């Protein structure tokens, strides 16, 4: 099964996938932006400021999902010692870091008109900052430790420890009294968000996920070339 993620097996698919995503990306982006900025209604309480949700929420979800993937792949790597997983986690980390930063910044921009403050040290925001710190530590481990094997090990440990923070972020709004509202979208189908707002949210999520896939594929390809370049003399 692990042969499926062998670089030489998937390398030629990467180029095809990049081209495919590039070909549909801008059309989907225009559709998503039209829904988010024009067609979706303003909120009865928050007015048009609710439109910030269409970039804030998908960014936060991607930030969380990226770190969860990194941590789970790091665990798999500890058990099965698959070198290729390190390339994948290393490629995901900058994307997750970027979206976590975006979630915090857009959240702050949303906080000012709705809460009257740019920043509050409440449980959800603080746990997101902790996630940001874990991302920075993970990336720094790869950048500062010269021995690749040691760097991978340290980064994997950081990711696994950081996984503890994910449920804290998710349930922070239920466990503590926070300024941040509790989630309106639930997997069990009891979402309190109207379809006219859910559709643009899902469209923006799709667009940002495609963007992530694009960056991930390009970063992964770069990592493979970097390693191949190192080995060129050996071949």
């Amino acid at each position, binding site marked *: 099964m692990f042969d499926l993620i062998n670089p030489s097996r998937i390398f030629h698919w990467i180029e095809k996938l990049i081209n495919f995503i590039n070909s549909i990306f801008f059309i989907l982006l225009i559709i998503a932006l039209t829904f988010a*900025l024009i067609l979706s209604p303003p909120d009865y309480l928050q*007015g*048009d400021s609710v439109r*910030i949700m269409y970039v804030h929420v998908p960014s936060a979800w991607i930030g969380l999902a990226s770190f969860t993937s990194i941590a789970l792949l790091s665990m798999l790597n500890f058990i099965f010692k698959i070198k290729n997983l390190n390339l994948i986690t290393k490629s995901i980390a900058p994307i997750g870091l*970027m979206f976590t*930063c975006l979630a915090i910044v*857009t959240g702050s*921009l949303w906080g000012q008109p709705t809460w009257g403050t740019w920043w509050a040290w409440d449980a959800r925001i603080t746990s997101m900052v902790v996630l940001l710190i874990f991302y920075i530590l993970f990336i720094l481990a790869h950048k500062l430790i010269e021995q690749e094997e040691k760097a991978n090990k340290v980064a994997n440990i950081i990711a696994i420890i950081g996984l503890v923070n994910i449920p804290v972020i998710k349930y922070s709004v239920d466990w503590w009294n926070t300024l941040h509202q509790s989630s309106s979208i639930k997997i069990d189908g009891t979402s309190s968000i109207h379809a006219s707002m859910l559709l643009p949210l899902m469209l923006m999520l799709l667009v940002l996920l495609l963007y992530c896939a694009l960056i991930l594929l390009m970063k992964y390809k770069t990592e493979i*070339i970097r390693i191949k*370049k190192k080995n060129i003399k050996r071949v």
Partner: protein
Amino acid sequence: MIQNFISMNGYGLFVWLSFAITFLVCAIVYYRTYRTLKKYEKDFAKELDQLSESERKLVLEKSKIASQVLASYSKSI
């Protein structure tokens, strides 16, 4: 109507700034990632170029990825 769309009923600054920051950051990261990838492809092709004919042939025969990188690089120039 356009005025309303721009002002977003008084929330324009926050809404537009959120979208602008998000897409600007995404565009910068895309551009930097793309440039790094192309730089690595170029360096890889250069390194291959420095090898002798027989060595290059050997590398291209042994490594599928090497030939694919070279093909992708030649397409982009």
